């Protein structure tokens, strides 16, 4: 390096600057490739139709004034409103089912010193890894057996197959961190085991419970296969499926409203998931850290 700085502090500072510059330089391609699609989807969603199909001008900015027309189209001419309602309802019921099964299971595995607890925990977690692509055909039979085909309730029944394993595992780790003493204190005060769980352990575990609900939501939103296989009626679809299948007529893609519909739900989900991403990572690698 050719720089011969006169003063020591300046050398240090220029070194710092160079280090930063190198890091930013290294990160730039990653940032562009990660963020550009979002930018492109956003600008597409806000462009007027003729502005989308021009090859002679710079496509990265507006040449006709931005418009809300695509969003308008979504809400007034498609089932987008229904899809949002369906998505919310599915997430709500999946969260409820997950909480009512994963909380007791996680607690039992973490705290009650059951024989084979660790192995059972791993066993439940492994089911998270049995992929939908192996299960969807037999589950199609289950869905028609339950008479739920073409209704979003089929997804309420199926999504817990991956949220329960994940959240049980997550909550297991979570309950292990709740100090034993507060439970003992409650039991000395006359609570039974169940009373101690309901009145003492659950109230201090609300971050774990909220995390479980968030994952019930974000993991449900990552699904495509099950909704594609089980729901084909327009007004019963969740958002990802609806956007992917209903905004196309033959070969014609309504790109503007496609991108509008995708982003309107995709961005909030991405933000929520982003905030809880560390929990997700420590959830799946949970046993390996420490």
């Amino acid at each position, binding site marked *: 390096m050719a720089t011969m700085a006169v003063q020591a502090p300046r050398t240090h500072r220029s070194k710092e600057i160079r*280090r930063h510059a190198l*890091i930013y330089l290294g*990160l730039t391609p*990653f940032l562009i490739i*990660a*963020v550009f*699609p*979002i930018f*492109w989807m956003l600008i*597409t969603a806000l462009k007027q139709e003729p502005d989308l199909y021009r*090859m002679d001008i710079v*496509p990265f900015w507006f040449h006709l004034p931005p418009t809300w027309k695509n969003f308008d189209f979504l809400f007034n001419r498609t089932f987008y409103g229904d899809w949002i309602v369906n998505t919310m309802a599915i997430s709500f019921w999946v969260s409820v089912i997950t909480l009512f*099964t*994963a909380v*007791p*299971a996680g607690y*039992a*595995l973490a705290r*009650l*010193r*059951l*024989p084979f*607890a*660790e192995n*059972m925990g*791993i066993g*439940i977690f*492994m*089911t998270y*890894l*049995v*992929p*939908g*692509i*192996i*299960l*969807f*055909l037999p*589950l199609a*039979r289950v869905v028609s057996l339950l008479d739920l085909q073409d209704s979003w309730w089929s997804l309420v029944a199926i999504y*817990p197959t991956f949220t*329960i394993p994940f959240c049980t595992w997550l909550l297991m780790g979570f309950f292990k961190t709740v100090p034993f003493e507060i439970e003992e204190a409650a039991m000395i005060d006359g609570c039974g085991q*169940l009373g101690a769980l309901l009145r003492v352990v659950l109230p201090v575990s609300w971050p774990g419970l909220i995390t479980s609900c968030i994952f019930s939501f*974000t993991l449900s939103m*990552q699904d*495509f*296969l099950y909704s594609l296989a089980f729901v084909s009626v327009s007004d019963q679809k969740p958002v990802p499926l609806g956007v*992917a299948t209903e905004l196309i007529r033959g070969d014609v893609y309504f790109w503007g409203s496609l991108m509008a519909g995708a982003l309107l739900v*995709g961005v909030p*989900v*991405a*933000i929520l998931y*982003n905030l809880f991403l560390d929990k997700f990572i*420590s959830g*799946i*690698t949970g*046993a*390996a*850290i*420490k």
Partner: protein
Amino acid sequence: MAEASAGGGAPPETSLSIALSRRAGVRPWWRTPTARRWVFGYTLLAPAVLYVGLLVGVPFLFSLYLSMSDASVGDPVARFVGIENFKAALESSTFYVALRNTLVFTVGAGILKGLLGTTLAFLLIQQFRGRKIVRALVVIPFTLPIAIAVLGWKWMFDSQFSVLNWALNQLHLIGAYGSPDWPVWLGQPGLALASVMFVNVWRGFPFGAIVLMAGMTSVAPEIIEAAKVDGASFMQRFRMVIVPMIAPILFIGSAFDTVFTLSDLSIVYLLTNGGPDGATEILPTLAYNTGIRGGALGRGAAISLFLFPLLLPAMILLLRTLRRRQY
């Protein structure tokens, strides 16, 4: 093991049980606190185990049965046909194309994700200004719902109005629209496979990076210091200390990624649906199109079960890593 401590500490139970045990001399086993705790525990476990058992375990066994039957969507009465479906799959050339594409896709994308993820992880563990925001932005591909992200790419790979082509054309890297030098990403066999792999890599590299970062930050700096004091060179520290310590996390991360990649339908289904001319056909799309669209449930189940031997190594790796952590 968990049982070791299970019997320990017969705690002060209710006075009733003490009185009972005094009268009987020996307390019946089902009244002991341990037994009651077990009953309570297994009762709490039951709903989760039943749910998962009924909707994952049973369907899995049912898919074995389906794969050996001639079940179809229209005809609910299935006949046992033995390994006919597997044989039919192995005799069709589409199957081999799909198998080959699946392997190329998984291995190729896996290597790229590993390289990019490692680079990104090493950049992100440095101390620099704006690290948090950079991290939040760079993981967007992974956190965006997959179907939604794929739709964005579908538009960017448009045969005529692709923004990528516009940019490449401005840089004079490709020819004009309509000329043979104008790439139609999803319409040319080689490019189509590369494109679907690219989207998978785009989605997966942030996951690789954050898993790796979680591993790296879990290595206590004191241990590395200690190795340094003992005279270990950088390569030695890396090989003998860092790699063994982050290996379990890496295994878990790559096992997850392999399972996601092998079983993901949405990227290929939405981008090309196996086309053009089977160039991007993978086992999941073949299973879906055979089983649901074609209505041949048995055939479809057999094809999807061919994924299982591919998934097995990843699952065994994961199981062993998780088991080893028991203490």
